[in-house]
């Protein structure tokens, strides 16, 4: 049987909100709702930065494959379309969920450095092949950082691609 895989925005390592038919909204609140409440603000000070609550994403197997899933990856198109003064950090945090927060996340890299030619591996901690339903793969932590040079207004959406091989 062909597997069905969904992408979840996590509230715990094994729980969250299904975003496979929705979107992820960076904001100044720890929730998964895509709305205009608690928007990111632009700092006045040139050396100050405003950080969103972190977002953590993980793959979920809703229908088990007939064999197994492997080669878990995540990447972008490589172009930051959010504009000047807005960055997104990304990090593989293994299989350990930590509470979402606004302080700068450690160990992150620019999300847009992860491309189809150099994707982020999501099977460095979770190394076992996926044969059953449930959450699988490493967690991806994301955080938006806004500088004083950013422009106000709603941003153009960016896309993150998750991929896996079904053998």
């Amino acid at each position: 049987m062909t597997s069905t895989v969904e992408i979840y925005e996590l509230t715990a390592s094994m729980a969250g909100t299904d975003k496979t038919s929705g979107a992820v909204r960076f904001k100044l609140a720890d929730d998964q709702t895509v709305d205009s409440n608690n928007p990111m603000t632009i700092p006045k000070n040139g050396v100050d930065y405003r950080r969103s609550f972190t977002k953590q994403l993980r793959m979920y197997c809703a229908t088990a494959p007939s064999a197994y899933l492997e080669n878990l990856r995540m990447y972008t198109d490589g172009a930051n379309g959010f504009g000047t003064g807005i960055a997104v950090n990304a990090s593989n945090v293994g299989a350990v969920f930590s509470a979402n927060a606004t302080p700068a996340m450690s160990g992150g890299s620019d999300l847009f450095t992860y491309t189809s030619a150099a994707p982020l591996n999501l099977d460095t901690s979770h190394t076992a092949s996926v044969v059953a339903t449930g959450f699988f793969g490493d967690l991806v932590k994301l955080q938006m950082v806004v500088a004083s040079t950013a422009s106000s207004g709603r941003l153009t959406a960016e896309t993150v691609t998750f991929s896996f091989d079904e053998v």
Partner: protein
Amino acid sequence: MDRYKCSITTKDGSTKDIYRGNSEDIVMITYISMIGMKHSVIIKDCIFIKKFRRVFTKVGTGNTKQSLEVLHCVITDKYRFYLKDRTGETFVTPKDYDMYL
């Protein structure tokens, strides 16, 4: 749902959707579209290693909706064969080339 389904032909001439036997028995892998178009990979003068479907799930960071794309792949010791499920485009690449959409 994939637009192409896979059929595996073995040395004895039989065809199967899933084959769990010896990979050396596989002589042809055929992808058949819903409208009957076929792409066949003949395993000759090369060694079949494995086949898989690579699935791409896209998530927006704004208001975009998720979409799904599938790439079928056959790996041999000499080349890889890729087939885009949505368009029927095919690619033959070096044996270790990983294609992502």
